[in-house]
């Protein structure tokens, strides 16, 4: 690294590109390995939240469903903060009326 490059880096406070590369790779590989594109993943996320919302009251804004990968094993990780259980779980047929989107 020349002095000029070093100063540039300091001033712009850019993160080193290797870190960015690693993060981008991990994300894209999780999708590649599971054969799920972001659109499908988003659809799955919505459906999972819908189902879960029938049983417990969850924070939809906080709810997060994502793919994580380690050692070539990809996991679907759902992180759904529960506010409180719903007293009577709704029946599947009534799912249309569930205020999951509320």
């Amino acid at each position, binding site marked *: 690294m020349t002095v000029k490059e070093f100063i540039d880096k300091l001033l712009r406070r850019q993160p*080193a*590109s290797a870190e960015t*590369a690693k993060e981008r790779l991990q994300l894209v590989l999780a999708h590649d390995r599971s054969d799920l594109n972001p659109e499908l993943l988003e659809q799955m996320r919505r459906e999972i939240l819908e189902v879960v919302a029938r049983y417990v009251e969850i924070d939809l804004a906080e709810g997060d469903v994502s793919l994580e990968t380690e050692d070539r094993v990809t996991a679907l990780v759902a992180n759904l903060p529960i506010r409180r259980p719903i007293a009577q779980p709704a029946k599947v047929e009534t799912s249309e009326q569930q205020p999951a989107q509320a």
Partner: protein
Amino acid sequence: MSTTRTILICSGKGGVGKTTTTANLGIALARQGAKTVVLDADFGLRNLDLLLGLENRIVYTAQEVLAETCRLEQALVKHKQEPNLALLPAGNPRMLEWLKPKDMQAIVALLERQFDYVLIDCPAGIEDGFKNAAAAAREAVVITTPEVAAVRDADRVIGLLNTQGVQPVQLVLNRVRPKMMSNQEMLSVDDVTDILALPLLGLVFEDEQVIVSTNRGEPLTLSDSSSPAAQAYGNIAQRLQGEDVPLMDPSQARRGLRAKMRKLMQTRIF
């Protein structure tokens, strides 16, 4: 069953160093006394012959052998300086269509009768060319560079090798630039091995001598070159043979260079 090691040298992405690795490993293994054949499965765009300096000596290909218009011995091109090494082109560019996985298996079965190592230089991509080449392989070495596109493509290939039951699959990280790594402007060795989750067979530094040796058609491992890439390929060959050779350390490489410079400056010329 034969004890021949039939190893696919593959990468997914083109231009990351498959052919360079095949040529250098082939020569290095041969010099270590192993009877080795390099099979050019990338015959649509063949250049293994060129890297080995054998481009003017090819008469037949594996296709003629299978069609029984020539004997295997006639198609094998023996390296003059290193007679333990032979080259066999799988076909020539006009024959792209003929090769099927079973043809590849038949060729390799013939080669396994007389060689200790069969190294298959795989075409880029994950289509038929790759599948044909992979059909005959028992194990694989995946080549990648520390760049996002190469690592991503390597990951695809590793997935396919796993489903085909090719085992073991090991990694060679090529074109490592120690200075960029230490500045964290290049994926580190650990980053790549963590992401791909493969055992590291070796790392090869970016080295101008690779290009010089390509110009001459004399792989670096042919002479006792002290260039970093030559050392790296020699080490990889030894590891393949089961020897325990420590990996190069990119951060030490730089220090080594600085130490050399210091020594050089201290040397009195007069």
